[in-house]
């Protein structure tokens, strides 16, 4: 991306972040972009640098190299920052003796907002009945809602949420999924980290996968799923051993993936059917494999090989 584009880019642009904690590198060239109108999922194992990256974006942690820009500006140069980025880093980070409303009120006052805006976001996240109780008594789900309310306070064009699904009941999860989608539909840039793959698969349009302090993938969800599915075929058969020997002889790679299923790669489905018929191997089903986000994630983080949006579907 050229410097001109970077300077004016809406959303979040993270470029080449490097940071060490004592000797160990925490961030090692982390780069990605969060664009408006899209929900971007942020995945990665513990220690991959997700939370550190979010803290760097918010100007909380310093880096040795690289930059994180909000609509082209570093966070610490923003006036009334919560009107530019709303963030939920840690839902439990609140004073237990303060009411949920009090918690939002000081935040609002810090941005020159008033109590009316506080009551609006309380309503928006469905916390009206509990808002005047001490936050120390809130369930994790209620704290998540309070944290999301805080992120929405400044009506920001960018929303950044770290693990917002944690501790939510099923109703809450369904609500949040729709809520995040609606934020993107309104044209906001949304960055969500989660370790709940299914939630992420249903919610995010775009995916950034972190590993060893870098983004090992930064691509559209659909492209990643398609690439991970590749030409693999799932074969259901009671004669797994026969099928395997026939297909290997034809040059395929075969892996047993269930009690009576094997996954075949290296051969198209019609060729597999022909070979099995020719060898008189019984089978009940041949289907194209559709990868889940879990497959994508495991493959990426296991191999830790870079995968870029610029080369979707490229063989690795």
């Amino acid at each position: 991306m050229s410097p001109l584009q970077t300077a004016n880019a809406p959303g979040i642009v993270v470029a080449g972040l490097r940071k060490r904690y004592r000797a160990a590198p925490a961030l090692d060239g982390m780069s990605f972009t969060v664009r408006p109108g899209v929900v971007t999922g942020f995945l990665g194992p513990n220690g991959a640098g997700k939370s550190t990256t979010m803290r760097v974006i918010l100007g909380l942690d310093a880096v040795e190299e690289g930059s994180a820009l909000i609509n082209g500006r570093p966070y610490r140069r923003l006036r009334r920052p919560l009107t530019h980025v709303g963030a939920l880093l840690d839902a439990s980070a609140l004073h237990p003796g303060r009411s949920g409303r009090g918690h939002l009120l000081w935040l609002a006052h810090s941005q020159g907002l008033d109590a009316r805006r506080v009551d609006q976001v309380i309503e928006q996240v469905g916390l009206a009945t509990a808002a005047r109780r001490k936050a120390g008594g809130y369930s994790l789900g209620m704290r998540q809602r309070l944290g999301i309310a805080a992120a929405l306070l400044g009506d920001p064009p960018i929303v950044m949420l770290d693990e917002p699904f944690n501790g939510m009941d099923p109703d809450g999860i369904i609500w949040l999924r729709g809520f995040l989608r609606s934020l993107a539909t309104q044209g906001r840039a949304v960055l969500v980290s989660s370790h709940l793959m299914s939630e992420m698969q249903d919610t995010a349009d775009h995916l950034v996968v972190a590993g060893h302090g870098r983004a090992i993938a930064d691509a559209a969800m659909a492209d990643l799923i398609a690439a991970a599915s590749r030409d693999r075929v799932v074969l259901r058969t009671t004669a797994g051993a026969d099928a395997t020997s026939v297909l290997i002889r034809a040059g395929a790679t075969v892996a047993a993936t269930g009690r009576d299923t094997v996954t075949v790669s290296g051969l198209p489905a019609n060729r597999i059917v022909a070979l099995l018929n020719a060898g008189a191997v019984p089978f009940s089903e041949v289907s194209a494999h559709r990868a889940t986000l879990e497959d994508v994630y495991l493959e990426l983080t296991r191999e830790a090989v870079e995968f870029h949006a610029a080369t979707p579907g490229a063989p690795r």
Partner: protein
Amino acid sequence: MTPLQSLRAEWTKFRTVRGWMVGTVAAALMIVLFALLTGASSDQKGAPPVPVGPGGEPVTDSFYFVHRPLAGNGSVSVSVSALDSRVPEGPGVVPWAKAGLIIKQSTRQGSPYAAVMVTGGHGVRMQDGFVHDTAGPRGPVRRLRLDRAGDTVTGYASADGSTWTKVGTARVRGLGATAQIGLFVASPPVVDGGGTAGSVSTAVFEDLRGHGTGDWTGEQVGAESPSFAGYPDNTSGSYTGTDARLTVTGAGDIAPAVGDSLPTGGHLRDILTGTFAALIAVIVVGALFVTAEYRHRMIRLTLAASPGRGRMLVAKAVVLWVVTFAAGLAGTAVAAPLGERLARDHGVYMFPVSSSTELRVALGTAALLATASVLALAVGAILRNSAAAVTAVIAAIVLPYALIAVPFMPAGVSKGVATVTPGAAFAVQQTLVPYDQVASNYTPYYGYYPLAPWAGLAVLAGYAVVSLVLAAVLLNRRDA
């Protein structure tokens, strides 16, 4: 984010945690409660009255007086050929032992007078009105003379008995048509370690001449006064001889009363003992105001909302200072008059305090509490741990307070503590006045601080500001 928004956010933060509001109000109530307890628990009903000088200040008016009436104007002169002092239980020198001539309205306690005298270590002096003191000529003095002309009394000294040097002139109102004139000997207690030791002095007067009628009467003036420490064991006041050669023995002093010469007197600092308890409360609240942010991991949210970290810290400090100051001022403003009144009702003599001094004590105590809480805030921001911050600041402020309250603490240590530690700020509660012509323990224990009130407060403020700057530097340097 403007400074006003920072202030408003921090104020909202403060007021929405009930514990902090309760702690601050409790600090104010503590001051009032201790004042009520101090006032109500004292009982000095029936104690002899404290003599009071013409300016309303408490005085010591106890000495051995050999006198006779003098109608109208007149003069008296005498030679002081010897002045010997004894301190049975301490050092042998009594610099402010006094022997000389005095004219006094009567032997009534606190009545007007003027006197010219030789002293144990301060040469010839002319004194009047208990607080006025003028040094006379240096060099050997043989004779003293005291003249009355109406309200004007003039003291003279002479080396040869013929050439007189004026020591001083005093306008003494209320001497009356017939005053008492004669010889006196006084011998105040001497400073001995952290306390005092009683002394007694004997003077030999020769060639007493002058006006006045009738026989000489010798008596101890103010023998029962609470500001008189009495005679050392096995000694007493007396006079013997004739006008040609009189030997007079006496104890006591004619001087303003100070902290340790009027031990039964109460002062404003005693009424405000609750400052100690209030300090602990405001230190805890001040430290928690920032350490709670770390303990509950809120600091990241705070700094995300206010990326100007130094400004956020200053906003916190300003809010805390103002809130604590208001609470402290409210507490002191109620406690001081209430406690003083209760104490007086229970017969306690209170050292008088001018209204400007009373105002200074109230404002100063409130500022002491507020600044101490800001120091706790700064230390809390540095250490990021409630227990460590509270312990450190209590050690820095309350420990000096406790050390000062130990009567046998050597004066040097006690004054040092009250000069260089944050405890120097207790000087804002000083209401007693030290006098050059009264040797006393002018130590914090007795209510005298080495620094002026605002200078003492400035020492504490210095600690707070330096800590706050350090906290801001660290806050900017550290990852949140």
